[in-house]
């Protein structure tokens, strides 16, 4: 069982996944952010690999990616930083990023090195399921990495079933048709989450996009196994003088 699967085996409710951008706010902050998140109640880390053209992300995460790139972050630098990851923490870590930098790094080399530093899974939103099934899925599996597909309120039931079958670890339910960090009203999302719940999917489900506080986290938790917070945390880090204090304060207002 992978670290992610173990987590969901142990904890079925209120699982909190927090997104952070590698190399943000400062290049060397990556591990410190991960450890601060773990110590203050996050169950899972989604670590963003910055890209110049992040299509699925809104302005907050794109701005953090731009800063991380200016700081000198790259896949190579990230893997160097993550060499100490498993000496310090056992929290599951998922790398999230876009296909192009991964392809340039070499897809197989990327998967191998990710697994070697103790990464547990991947989210690549612009890797389509056709290419996953024909080319990349087997490479990911051979390296014992989980792969998490996204579903949205627009995804048909048949397609949700298919993406659930292809996913391992969990299924990422995008809360609404939106890019990350939007302010859309969360209420209409509930019928969609109910629909997902009624489908009794193979994988646990985490809800992302638009989760920013205790209220939205609790709502997501009513229907699914938990939620993913991204932009709201990045915003909190933006003006932070003390990563630990900021992270503690941020997670307290979500979890308590």
């Amino acid at each position, binding site marked *: 069982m992978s670290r992610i699967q173990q987590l969901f085996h142990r904890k079925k409710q209120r699982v909190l996944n927090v997104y952070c951008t590698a190399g943000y706010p400062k290049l060397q902050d990556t591990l410190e952010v991960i450890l601060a998140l773990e110590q203050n109640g996050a169950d899972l880390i989604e670590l963003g690999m910055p890209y110049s053209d992040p*299509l699925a992300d809104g302005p907050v995460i794109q701005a953090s990616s731009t800063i991380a790139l200016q700081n000198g972050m790259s896949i190579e630098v990230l893997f160097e930083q993550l060499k100490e990851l498993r000496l310090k923490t056992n929290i599951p870590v998922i790398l999230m990023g876009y296909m192009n*930098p991964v*392809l340039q790094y070499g897809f197989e080399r990327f998967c191998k090195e990710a697994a070697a530093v103790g990464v547990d899974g991947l989210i690549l*939103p*612009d890797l389509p399921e056709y290419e996953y099934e024909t080319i990349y899925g087997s490479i990911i599996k051979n390296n014992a990495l989980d792969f998490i597909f996204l579903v*949205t309120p627009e995804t048909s039931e048949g397609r949700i079933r298919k993406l659930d079958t292809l996913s391992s670890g969990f299924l990422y339910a995008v809360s609404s*048709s939106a*890019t990350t960090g939007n302010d859309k009203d969360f209420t209409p999302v509930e019928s969609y989450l109910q629909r997902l719940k009624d489908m009794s999917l193979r994988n646990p489900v985490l809800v992302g996009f638009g989760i920013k506080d205790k209220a939205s986290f609790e709502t997501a938790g009513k229907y699914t196994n938990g939620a993913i917070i991204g932009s709201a945390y990045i915003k909190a880090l933006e003006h932070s003088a003390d990563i630990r204090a900021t992270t503690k304060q941020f997670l307290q207002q979500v979890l308590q």
Partner: protein
Amino acid sequence: MVTTYQQPDAQGYYGQFGGAYIPEMLHRNVAELREQYLTIMQEPDFKAEFEALLKDYVGRPTPLFHAERLSEELGATIFLKREDLCHTGAHKINNTIGQILLARRLGKTRIIAETGAGQHGVATATVCALKGMQCIVYMGEKDIERQAPNVARMKMLGATVVPAISGSKTLKDATNEAIRDWINNPHDTHYIIGSVVGPHPYPDMVARFQSVISKETRQQLLEKTGTELPTHVVACVGGGSNAAGAFYHFLDEKEVKLVAVEAAGHGVHTGMSAATTQLGKPGILHGSKSLLMQTADGQVIEPHSISAGLDYPGIGPLHAYLFESRRGVFLSATDEEALASAFHVSKTEGIIPALETAHAFAILDKLNLKSTDRVVVCLSGRGDKDLATYMQHL
């Protein structure tokens, strides 16, 4: 299905290039388009409406003009395909007419588009006005400053111009913003992409709408020369929509040389260039796999060209395939060469070409033409929009 030059395979691949590398949030809209575009385009009433608008609104067929003085100078027969005479001043409107008719048949009421120099934005705003549809055009903040007259035209036509303030604030970022808008508005909106780029089916769909250029060219050559085939077709390439249209009906005629001209900017190896086939590697941008200018880490490089319409770090997947398979000849012209050629064509033929088009003219003397050669140059747009640049060099 087999990949041919005219038709990608079922997944949208031309050789290794193409596909649909999109996040799940775009899946339904792109799948809807993929499932319906060919059927709709083949419906008799769609065809009739498309052709009538091309004729009576755009002003097609555009002339194929025998440029006698250029011919004499170059020692070959030079024909100019006059896309500059299309309504709005460039070939871009062939595609926006097609896509707006398609959008209406898909039940969409809101149109979004990206634009660099503003030509595609103007062509989109124009057809939205024509059909009474809401129009939002994303344009890089820097391009809004550089292309004030086209911004004014779009506004006058009733469009909302939204500045793209992310990343490098130019065409690629305007495209990112348009895609994000589509993600956020999945029900009522159609995205009119302006070039043969983007996820499948866009490259094929836009190429088909632009293919009217080469369809007419064949007919006109037959009338003028007694043969349908030229020896060369020359077109400038940014994303590659005018080139795709000018090449389309010659793609499978192996004896016709297809010459694509990229923008070398200050020079291919100066770090200030947009010559994608020279500088790019296979990569993924805006939903398709193609050649892409990028760093060793896979971050997209901001290109440079004096012409905002060629200032794009990628190239359509069809062109990447033409390049890789050597079916196409890819050359480049610098800013300086394009400018010189714009002035030369103006004085020689009485036609002021767009800066983009000037790149195509700039390489004609490098083709080693023979007296029996028949060369078609796609005169993709007129130069009025570039007067501010031209005035600095008078």
